[in-house]
């Protein structure tokens, strides 16, 4: 079959694309490799359970809350049989993703080798078959390889491989080991379909597939109801966004008659710039992005998604899936370039989300919740960049965020693992994710400590670390757009667009400040001060095994040096400048320039230095403030603070958004469903009138019919005679 696909691909390439005939022809293997892993691991997860019989529940009821399975319970059941299968999963799971990464790297090198000819040749598109040939609508299974999808593929497979390796250690004792790797492989497969798909519908397949995997992995320990509910919540909230995405696709098809990227890019010129149609398409697309990438008001599922295993949070809910919205906007740059108004709304939503989530992060005790709100906040940053047309800046931040946030999550996973192991030894039921149970872990796990500090400095925006460069580029882009851009010339509610953009810039700075504060707070509570884990547990706290720290170290290197991907012009002394900008230019430069109003504004060096100075100042200020605020004595307190009131309590409860949604959206919906839809429509109308009513009608007809059946032949003769009269009459008086 693969051969046939290959041949089909070869036949479909008459024009000599620079990549034709190179290793890029194997692009179809990228999604298929993880799919193969999914099939193997999926079978492995079924076979042992089948062997063990119905006694072997594939989950541990105790494991749900604390991330880790109970070891004894597992040891008791774990036969060598199980171990052998698990070992196979350990090999297959990471290996397929690793091979995909190697292949992606090879294709990347081929693209580099193709050189400048690639910039003019456009995307490398391969079609592998027809999916929906319906009338004029022709949707093909097509993959598209260009600079943007290549970068995404590298991030997904690279970070994905590291997280798969980390999972070997983290999930070691989990009874659902093979099932976990099966889901994770499937996720990578769908994620690659998402970024490599050559049209919106194929992207949508990946889009929904990753949503499915997200659901499966959030509810991985589904025996705990809250975990299962978190999975459902993520799935349902995403449906709202998917509705928007679908409507956008319908509008595209109805008005442009094509859904391929190439076709849409070409046909977009037919749309009226700044018209209602293109704005509607973009806003519906953004609704989809807001769902998938957890932006206001659809962010609510992401904090709950932390119910899944921590490596899942790192891979899906930080590094890859949630950035799909940013990818989609960058991909749809040709459309957004025509809709400055929609772009402004994207930027505004991103900025508000960034600030909103960052403030919530200030008051969380659950280490993963801090990181979750941090992710929402950083995604907001990306949307700010995408909104002002700085698509390469958005993708740059996407990349650096993938590095440092994956590192932070995996580091948090390492901490949780250590605490869980310790509590496991002493058989205490404590929350291994609560920072109030941590403190002073620096002495016990120095590697994790050092690497997480690197990531914290990166996200806070301290110079040299990767996050500094990407965040600085975003803020610079916003400032530049405020000075001069197509967006700046708009008016929203009478306010000039440029004023709003300046406001967004300020919001970005404030968010950076708050980010620095809450991240430092998290680090201080976790690693510094006195240890609050417990006397009995302290001797059992130790660093995670090498299979977990190894990926952390690799991510640490990327976190520190990721900024070199895209050095700003003013810092050209450090190395070659704007590598990423130049790499992505063939895909996004035109849209960026259109949104900027002709030419991307070039800020003077003095302005750039001033912007960098401001960014560095707020990050140092934030870290300094946190160090002073959460100093020694406060850290030592077991129960840190008394009950809060007012704003503090509101922030702690995430502004009561969940509660508000529950009260004003979910409960009325449930009430409506119960009283009107269930009791009224279902029981009353459908069951009562239609189902039972038709039964009653039939009973009545049957009763009348039974009365006719007198058993008396004479009466039957009458019926026959009358019937004959009717028939003969019909013939006679035709």
């Amino acid at each position, binding site marked *: 079959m693969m051969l046939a696909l290959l041949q089909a691909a070869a036949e479909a390439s008459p024009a000599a694309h620079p990549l034709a005939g190179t290793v890029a022809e194997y692009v179809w293997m990228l999604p298929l490799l993880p799919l193969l892993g999914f099939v193997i691991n999926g079978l492995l997860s079924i076979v042992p359970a089948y062997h063990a019989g119905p006694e072997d529940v594939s989950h541990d009821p105790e494991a749900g809350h604390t991330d880790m399975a109970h070891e004894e319970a597992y040891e008791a059941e774990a036969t060598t049989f199980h171990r052998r299968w698990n070992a196979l999963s350990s090999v297959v799971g990471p290996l397929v993703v690793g091979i995909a990464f190697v292949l992606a790297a090879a294709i990347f090198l081929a693209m580099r080798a193709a050189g400048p000819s690639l910039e003019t040749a456009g995307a490398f598109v391969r079609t592998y078959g027809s999916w929906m040939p319906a009338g004029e609508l022709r949707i093909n299974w097509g993959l598209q390889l260009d600079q943007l999808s290549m970068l995404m593929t590298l991030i997904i497979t690279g970070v994905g491989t590291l997280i798969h390796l980390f999972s070997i250690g983290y999930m070691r004792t989990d009874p659902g080991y093979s099932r976990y790797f099966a889901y994770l492989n499937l996720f990578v497969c769908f994620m690659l379909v998402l970024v490599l798909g050559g049209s919106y519908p194929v992207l949508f397949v990946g889009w929904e597939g990753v949503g499915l995997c997200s659901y499966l992995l959030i509810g991985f320990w589904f025996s705990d109801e809250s975990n299962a509910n978190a999975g459902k919540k993520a799935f349902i909230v995403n449906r709202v966004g998917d509705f928007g995405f679908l409507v956008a696709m319908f509008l595209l098809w109805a008005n442009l008659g094509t859904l391929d990227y190439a076709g849409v890019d070409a046909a977009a010129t037919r749309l009226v710039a700044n018209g209602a149609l293109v704005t509607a398409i973009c806003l519906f697309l953004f609704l989809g992005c807001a769902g998938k990438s957890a932006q206001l008001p659809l962010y609510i599922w992401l904090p709950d998604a932390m119910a899944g295993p921590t490596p899942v949070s790192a891979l899906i809910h930080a590094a890859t899936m949630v950035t799909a919205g940013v990818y989609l906007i960058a991909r749809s740059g040709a459309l957004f370039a025509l809709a400055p108004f929609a772009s402004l709304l994207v930027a505004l939503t991103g900025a508000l989300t960034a600030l909103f989530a960052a403030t919530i992060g200030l008051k969380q005790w659950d280490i993963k919740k801090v990181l979750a709100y941090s992710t929402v906040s950083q995604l907001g940053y990306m949307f700010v960049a995408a909104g002002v047309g700085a698509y390469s800046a958005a993708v740059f931040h996407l990349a650096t965020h993938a590095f440092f946030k994956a590192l932070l999550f995996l580091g948090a996973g390492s901490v949780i693992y250590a605490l869980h192991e310790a509590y496991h030894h002493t058989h205490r039921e404590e929350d291994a994710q609560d920072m109030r149970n941590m403190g002073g872990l620096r002495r016990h796990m120095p590697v994790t400590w050092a690497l997480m500090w690197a990531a914290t400095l990166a996200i806070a925006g301290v110079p040299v670390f990767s996050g500094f460069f990407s965040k600085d580029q975003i803020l610079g882009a916003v400032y530049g757009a405020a000075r001069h851009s197509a967006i700046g010339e708009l008016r929203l509610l009478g306010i000039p667009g440029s004023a709003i953009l300046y406001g967004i810039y300020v919001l970005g700075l404030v968010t950076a400040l708050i980010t620095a504060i809450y991240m430092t707070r998290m680090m201080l509570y976790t690693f510094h001060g006195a240890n609050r884990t417990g006397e009995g547990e302290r001797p059992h706290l130790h660093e995670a095994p090498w299979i977990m720290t190894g990926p952390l170290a690799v991510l640490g290197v990327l976190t520190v040096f990721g900024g070199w991907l895209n050095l700003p012009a003013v810092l050209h002394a450090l190395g070659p400048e704007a590598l990423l900008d130049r790499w992505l230019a063939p895909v996004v430069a035109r849209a960026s320039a259109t949104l900027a109003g002709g030419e991307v504004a070039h800020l003077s060096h003095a302005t750039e230095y001033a912007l960098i100075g401001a960014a560095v100042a707020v990050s140092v200020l934030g870290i300094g403030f946190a160090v002073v605020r959460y100093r020694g004595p406060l850290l030592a307190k077991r129960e840190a603070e008394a009950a809060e009131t007012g704003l503090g309590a509101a922030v702690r409860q995430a502004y009561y958004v969940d509660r508000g949604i529950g009260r004003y959206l979910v409960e009325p919906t449930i009430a409506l469903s119960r009283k009107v839809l269930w009791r009224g429509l279902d029981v009353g109308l459908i069951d009562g009138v239609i189902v039972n009513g038709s039964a009653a009608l039939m009973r009545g007809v049957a009763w009348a019919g039974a009365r006719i059946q007198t058993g008396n032949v004479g009466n039957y003769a009458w019926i026959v005679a009358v019937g004959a*009269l009717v028939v003969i009459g019909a013939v006679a008086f035709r």
Partner: protein
Amino acid sequence: MSLLYQVHFYLFGIIAVASALFFVTRKNPVAAALWLVNTMFALAALYVMLDAQFVGAIQVLVYAGAIMVVFLFVVMLLNLGQTDAPDFRTPGVRLGAAAVAVVMLAELLVLSRAGRIPEVAPSATPQTNVVAPVAELLFTEHLLAFEITSVLLLVAVVGAVVLAKRQRRA
């Protein structure tokens, strides 16, 4: 067409209808059966006048001679000669039957006048070969149907025997 022929035709027709009316109004089954036999004889005469001499012959032989005799035989076997119960249904039913009769007669007459009916004269000379046309059709084109009627009769005979046989108690 001779007047004599027409008179005879009407005569036998009226006999048939009158006998049928008597048949249907007799309370006594034996009397009714005998009136029906009379109708059948009249019909046989009409068949002959319509140049269907063979049909007329078997009408007398089979219908009047065999079937009606069996009827009479059963009537007498079951001793149904005198019955106390009123054999006719209630006046309301009879009124309804009259209505049905009027409508049906109207419909049938409309039907019989639907097409143009050509006047066909009876053959002037006595016909000598009256069976051959019927036999030719019966034994060539409709041979299969003819053979199947023999199976039908066999089944009817067996069925009648089984039905009328006195049930042995198991």
